[in-house]
């Protein structure tokens, strides 16, 4: 079994006439939290959407747990054990929190069939999910919606959790809650790939890091090495963390 749960080899993606990814190479180690960093427009979201099959790779190869998933439909990628939280959170605003969670629990037909132990664990991570269980998701605040989006992704055990900018637009106190929650998820053994602009968030959580620019990965290594090298931070990110 490979040490890497997910690898991308020379992945190119076109969206219409635009060539967005120019040969992305990325390796996500098992059981670790990998941060994908880079400025706006570097290709981070496109990379995540290409992994999920929401946009098709025009060249290159994506391998998940030993299986080539480059040409798989989104729903088949998801069924292999990949959970995805998009940048816009993908909450179904007209459904209740319970219904959002039930949808993500593919094994359950009714709320009563959901894994109650796992649900209690999720309620401890994100108390707002339990508090607003029967409320329409559209009525939640931005932070509560983000918690629901992540909670929904982990309602059943998944091998890989992919999250696009979980701290975007959130108040500092909620970001701290979110960091704690991801730390607990990481401790439970799930592999996580996070796109993040919040450098503090990245530094506190990341085990490994990949930095993107202009549609390619320009640096890959450990978060600790990047955190300790101010010159490297400035050259890659334009600022020191």
């Amino acid at each position, binding site marked *: 079994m490979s040490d890497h749960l997910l690898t991308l080899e020379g992945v190119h993606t076109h969206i219409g006439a635009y060539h967005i990814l120019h040969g992305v190479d990325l390796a996500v180690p098992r059981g670790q939290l990998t941060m994908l960093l880079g400025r706006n427009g570097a290709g981070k979201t496109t990379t995540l959407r290409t992994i*999920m099959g929401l946009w098709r790779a025009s060249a290159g190869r994506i391998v998940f747990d030993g299986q080539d998933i480059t040409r798989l*439909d*989104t*729903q088949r990628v*998801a069924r292999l054990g990949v959970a995805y939280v*998009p940048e816009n959170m993908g909450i*179904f605003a007209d459904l209740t929190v319970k219904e959002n969670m*039930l949808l993500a629990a593919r094994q359950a037909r*009714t709320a009563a069939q959901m894994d109650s132990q796992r649900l209690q664990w999720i309620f401890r991570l994100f108390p707002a999910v339990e508090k607003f269980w029967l409320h329409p998701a559209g009525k939640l605040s931005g932070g509560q919606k983000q918690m629901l989006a992540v909670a*929904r992704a982990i309602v059943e055990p998944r091998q890989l959790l992919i999250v696009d900018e979980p701290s975007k637009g959130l108040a500092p106190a909620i970001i701290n809650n979110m960091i704690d929650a991801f730390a607990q998820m990481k401790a439970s053994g799930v592999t996580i790939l996070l796109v993040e602009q919040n450098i503090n968030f990245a530094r506190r959580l990341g085990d490994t890091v990949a930095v993107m620019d202009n549609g390619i990965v320009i640096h890959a290594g450990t978060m600790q090495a990047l955190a300790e090298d101010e010159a490297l931070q400035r050259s890659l990110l334009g600022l020191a963390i």
Partner: protein
Amino acid sequence: MKDFDWKPLALVPLLALLVLPFIGSASTWVTLTVAGLAMGMIVFVIASGLTLVFGLMDILNFGHGVFIALGAFVATSVLGSMADYTASASLWTNLMAVFPAMLVAMLVAGAVGLAFERFIVRPVYGNHLKQILITMGGMIIGEELIKVIWGPLQIPLPLPEGMRGALLLGDAAVEKYRLLAVIIGLAVFGALLWVLTRTKIGLLIRAGVQDREMVEALGYRIRTLFVGVFVAGSALAGLGGVMWGLYQQNVVPQMGGQVNVLIFIVLIIGGLGSTSGALIGALLVGLMANYTGFLVPKAALFSNIALMMAVLLWRPQGIYGAGR
């Protein structure tokens, strides 16, 4: 339910009460109101499938009318072959012919809907202009095929013996068939509501209406759901076609196109994609058509367009529009 928007529900009794002084006679008002509700229920059965097809699939299916006509023509064949049952004065015996006719009409319309989705709709996903053109073309082809099978002329579809006549409520006469149409319409609404709110399939449909991509990302094959909803919508149109044919007591190959206008008014009033909106829109359209048909016959078609304009001035996305 505390978040449910109850205001649009008041429109139906409000409209009925507003016209009462103009009609004058309470018995005539009752007769017209029941007739309007029955017509509204039939239009709802037809429109309910289309609103889901639009909401979930973002498909503008202007060919929906062909399933209505198909259902009605299938009913002429089935009921024609069960003359012993339809000639009986017993309502129960009549129902033993009408219900199988409805079932066969739904099966045939559903099967044709499956082919329609595969060969006509699927190649134009995501392009509204092409959808309008090709589905209208599909309806023309469907009408011509109906003429090939059943002939180009109007075919009578008389009400079974036991469904004819009216019940007297005081001085008001309420036609038996219209009561039956209301009951069937309510049953369809109840069944749809149950599926949409109490089952996982319904949950997926409601989620798919909001964000198809996310439903896929959760591991569900939205394409299968699309096809299922399209087939169910076609089958409901077939059922509505039987009800409409019996309501008119005759069928013509062009009937689908004629009813299409009413359906789209209903969907726009109700808000595209909303089942509850389609019910209220259909009831409003049915009542308005009957009231104006009695009070100002020449304004019958215009009245529903005026109603649609008034609703859109109040709520530009329709009464339960999703704000798309």
